[in-house]
């Protein structure tokens, strides 16, 4: 083990962490406005990615078209999830929404395996160039694209929330749904827009992940839900900045764990972290009163 290895791990982790960060941003936006967990978030992304790869396989769609299909697909499936799992239940029936989203998870996986029965499916690669050499460190160009896209989207979301009327309406709904309705905000529509936006962001993340792998299985759904969930919890429920920090940190932790303890440990880190967070540190990085999560959400994002 050398300093170069450590630096290389950190760099690799940062790049993979960028995709976690995107997942967590979408997750946290949905949690913020709904105050309910959307377990079907990952499978929504998977559905979008599968539609994209189906277009790639059967029509030979170019990469850019696949990207568009993935984003639109994820957004539409997100709308479907919102209609079925969240719109019909009020905030008083959080468990109902969560269980319903679990049911949709199963449904979406089933639908995906009918669309593409093979376990492993090809996905158009983003950039097939040689890794860049920066001194002793190696850097994949497509990873760099992933990091850049993450920073771009995170910046755009932050701008949206801080500066636009829509963003302020989203924050008003997160803060005080009833008062938001009172000042004339169509609360349900703001929730729906946020949900669709978050699903589209998830679609971008799903595309980048599948493209850097060059292949995709339906397991990406569960993968996205768990990684996004852990990254969100690590950053602090409902905080966009926390989601980004949590995603990057999770990526770095995993990369080091893989290097020191072996590849089979990689996913255990995420699961172990989720347990530790839930048990001891539910407020996450952006520190809040651990037990008063709804309040915490209100103050952040």
């Amino acid at each position: 083990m050398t300093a170069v290895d450590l630096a290389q791990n950190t760099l690799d982790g940062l790049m993979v962490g960028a995709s976690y960060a995107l997942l967590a941003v979408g997750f946290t936006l949905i949690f913020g406005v709904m105050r309910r967990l959307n377990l079907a978030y990952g499978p929504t992304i998977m559905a979008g990615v599968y539609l994209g790869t189906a277009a790639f396989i059967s029509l030979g769609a170019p990469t850019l078209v696949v990207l568009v299909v993935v984003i639109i697909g994820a957004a539409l499936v997100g709308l479907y999830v919102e209609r079925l799992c969240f719109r019909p239940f009020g905030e008083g029936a959080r468990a109902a929404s969560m269980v319903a989203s679990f049911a949709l998870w199963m449904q979406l996986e089933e639908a995906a395996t009918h669309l593409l029965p093979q376990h492993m499916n090809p996905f158009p690669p983003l950039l097939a160039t040689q890794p860049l050499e920066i001194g002793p460190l190696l850097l994949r160009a497509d990873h760099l694209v992933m990091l850049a896209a993450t920073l771009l989207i995170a910046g755009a979301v932050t701008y949206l929330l801080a500066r636009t009327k829509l963003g302020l309406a989203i924050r008003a709904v997160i803060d005080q749904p009833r008062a938001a309705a009172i000042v004339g905000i169509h609360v349900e529509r703001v929730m729906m827009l946020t949900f669709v936006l978050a699903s589209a962001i998830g679609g971008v993340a799903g595309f980048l992940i599948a493209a850097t792998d060059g292949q995709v299985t339906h397991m990406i759904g569960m993968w996205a839900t768990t990684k996004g969930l852990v990254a969100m919890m690590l950053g602090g429920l409902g905080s966009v900045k926390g989601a980004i920090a949590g995603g990057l940190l999770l990526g770095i932790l995993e990369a080091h764990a893989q290097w020191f303890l072996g590849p089979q440990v990689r996913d255990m880190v995420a699961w172990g972290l989720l347990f530790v967070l839930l048990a001891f540190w539910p407020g996450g990085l952006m520190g809040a009163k651990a037990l008063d999560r709804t309040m915490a959400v209100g103050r952040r994002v």
Partner: protein
Amino acid sequence: MLELQNLSKYFGGVRAVDSLSLKIEPGQIFGLIGPNGSGKSTTVNLITGLLGVTNGSIRLSGEEITRLPTHVRLSSGIARTFQNIRLFGQLTVWQNLWVAENSRAQRERTSFLARWLGGESGARARITKALEFSGLSHKANELAANLAFGEQRRLELARAMAAEPKLLLLDEPAAGMNAEEIGALDERIRQIRDSGITVLLIEHHMELIMAIADRIAVLNFGQKIAEGTPAEVQANPAVREAYLGTAETSTRGTA
């Protein structure tokens, strides 16, 4: 302006509001009083649509609004403040008012996206004016959650006014205020009325309500037991009994 007809709200077997009929004339300050739990806040929640009506109807300027969703109802000219202040705590003072400006834009029927993504040129001037009116100009960039209690009340009132309502519902605006602040509130409510806005005022502070209300209705157990001018209501034996009766029971309870 506002007309309630046989309005009822049941929570299970509890009749929180029971066949309430009221008629509020334009330009009035209409007071709604009654002991705790008599259904005043429920009435306001029914008028604003935060609660669904069990029976009866609500009309605003002759227009039936009983089943309209809250945000539509509000943009047709109703605004309110809450008994327990509900500001957007993580937004700045200025942003709280900016969000409220949406209500007006909605009435002007611009498209949804234009409403949310575009800025409105007149909004800035109106917000600046509202801040001056509330004495909050120097706190414009402060987070609403960080304001002092009295300032939060003023901001909530300003936010309601930003919607340029025809009817303003004030749910215990004097709660937690000292005498000096209540004096200022009295003045402000009169100014609002004089600017042509009808006010429905729920208040426990009798001195305030008797001083400024043009007309008062008294609720007890969800039913209207009296209505009239402040003098008439004060002289009404049923009202005395409702208040004194409650006091007597509670004295017995503690004895």
